[in-house]
């Protein structure tokens, strides 16, 4: 039996509006094993992104608990959470979230600066990754000088550079065309295999179903 690396126990996340409470995630119980590729599917507003944010510690649940490696991350202090995010978790966003005034190299460097051994030169980590993703000639480019697909590749490289245990990807192909999406997914799967990563991905389409170890469907904040 595989070891669960992520354990969501009765996780709820409610948002309070002016006159109503929105149940973005409602009593979700989910276990994700080491090296597993989980695809969370659902329509827009189903609660996929909120669940992803809860699992990676960007948000705290209204009730319930999220455990990573048997530690309840919702009880973590800011410092512990920062350590978790910088060392064990990598997040890929739909809109990439690259820093627009930093070059490709600097965007990656800024993510690993707190993690890497100072004796190891950042170039030794970053350049092979960029080479693998076909971005060697874009090292000194600003994100605005790259295509959408290249920007997402930089975002992937930034996540992988710190060698995380788990990657959370929120609609990583949502902003790109099918061809680019396919390339990005192929890269992600290859890198996942290479680095023995656990991959939790949110998507509203069905194109990725065939690659996932498990597909979870979300509707109205609940897992069906």
């Amino acid at each position: 039996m595989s070891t669960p690396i992520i354990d969501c126990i009765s996780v709820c996340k409610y948002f309070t509006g002016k006159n109503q409470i929105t149940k973005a995630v409602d009593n979700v119980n989910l276990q994700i094993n080491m090296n597993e590729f989980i695809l969370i599917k659902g329509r827009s507003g189903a609660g996929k992104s909120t669940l992803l944010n809860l699992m990676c510690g960007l948000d705290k649940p209204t009730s319930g608990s999220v455990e990573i490696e048997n530690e309840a991350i919702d009880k973590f202090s800011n410092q512990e959470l920062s350590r978790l995010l910088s060392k064990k978790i990598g997040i890929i966003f739909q809109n990439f979230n690259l820093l627009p005034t930093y070059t490709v190299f600097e965007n990656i460097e800024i993510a690993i600066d707190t993690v890497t051994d100072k004796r190891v030169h950042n170039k030794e980590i970053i350049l092979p990754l960029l080479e693998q993703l076909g971005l060697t000639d874009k090292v000194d480019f600003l994100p605005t000088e790259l295509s959408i697909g290249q920007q997402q590749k930089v975002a992937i490289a930034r996540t992988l550079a710190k060698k995380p245990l788990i990657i959370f990807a929120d609609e990583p192909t949502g902003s790109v065309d099918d061809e680019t999406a396919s390339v990005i997914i192929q890269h992600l799967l290859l890198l996942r295999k290479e680095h023995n990563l656990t991959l939790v991905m949110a998507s509203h389409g069905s194109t990725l179903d065939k690659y996932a170890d498990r597909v979870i469907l979300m509707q109205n904040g609940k897992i069906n």
Partner: protein
Amino acid sequence: MKYVFKELRRHLWRTVLSISGYIIATLFIILIIAVTHNNKKDTDTILMGIGTHFTIYVPSGMPYNNVPFDTTCCTEPEFCIIVSGENQSSVDFRNGSLYSDGVYTKLLSRNFLNQVRQVKGVRDAAPYLLYKRFEDHYKADVSIGGMDPGSIATQNNVCAPNDIIEGKFLPSDTSEVVAEESFARAFNLHIGDTLYYCDKELRLVGIINSGVKPGKADLYTTFDNLKYILKDQLKLNMSGFDLNVILVEVEDSRNQAEVMEAIKIQNQYASLSSYNCYKPSANVMSIIGKASAILYGIIFLFLIVFAAKTQTTSLMERLREIGILKSMGWSNRRLGGQIVAGSLIQALVGSIFGCVLSLITLSILNYFQIQLVDNSVLNIQFTQLLFVCSLALVGALLASLFPIIKIWRLSAGDIMRSYL
């Protein structure tokens, strides 16, 4: 730190504008400090000279005249109590006496004078002999003061060289005296005339108008000259007892009340006489001092508000980046440190440039002689420049608090939802 500098460089215009703000704020603060400080200094110089003097004497019930000095009567080391003679119902200068403020006085010792000089806040204390007698020649009571003319206490309590209106200020020998203008006019005296006092012939060498002074007399001479003139009237045969009034000048009129109180505590028999001019001038100085302090406070608040606004605007612009950095594992402490460091660097650079610019501006103002009062030069001290730089740094530090609190309160998830 490299990300701090990188961030400042990457948003060059924002950094330049922010630093410009500090430059302008520092420039105005220094100019205001220079103006208020010099204004305060100039007004204080004028006001501190008003009412900063008073006299000390020990009243007696009987005249000091031809009474042999009796050492057995000295119960206090500071002054001598004359015990012989009868108390008189009214002051009568027929036979002459040491006096002050219209009453007979006792002799005071040099020891007491030195004690007064040691009191905190006393700028100068000088000996004074003030004697009055009825002169048959003029059919009037005529007073004479023996003073130390070089003392500032004498100049403010009795008369000063710039009070002279005719002739010379200082007599050169024991037969010369200076007369008050009122006395000279009353008896139609002119420079070179001969005066008669204590059976001696004296020559008038100067006419003076000393104004309203506590130690005012009809005639003036030096302290030693008067001792010589009155050698037959006063038996100053006890060492150290040769004055009857102590003239005091204090450093600051605001401290005069405390100085007088301290002397009163030192010697309970002493009478202290002042025109109380120090009270309004002390009040004015106090008002100016408080106004300056309030102005500095307002400037400091302005600086903090300005810096806080700059930092908050900068934070709002950077919130997206901060959300990204938080999601990558940057701690609140590290992000807060970046904001503080960035803010401090901008404040430091801005305040240094501001200091340089303000020095240039002050030089220009002084070059074109734009002054508050005549001969007043606008200047600023190095310590004041340091103070303004420190103020800018403290302001920058305080201004960073709001953005830091905001970062602390917002989770990465909140930022993602709201700003990305």
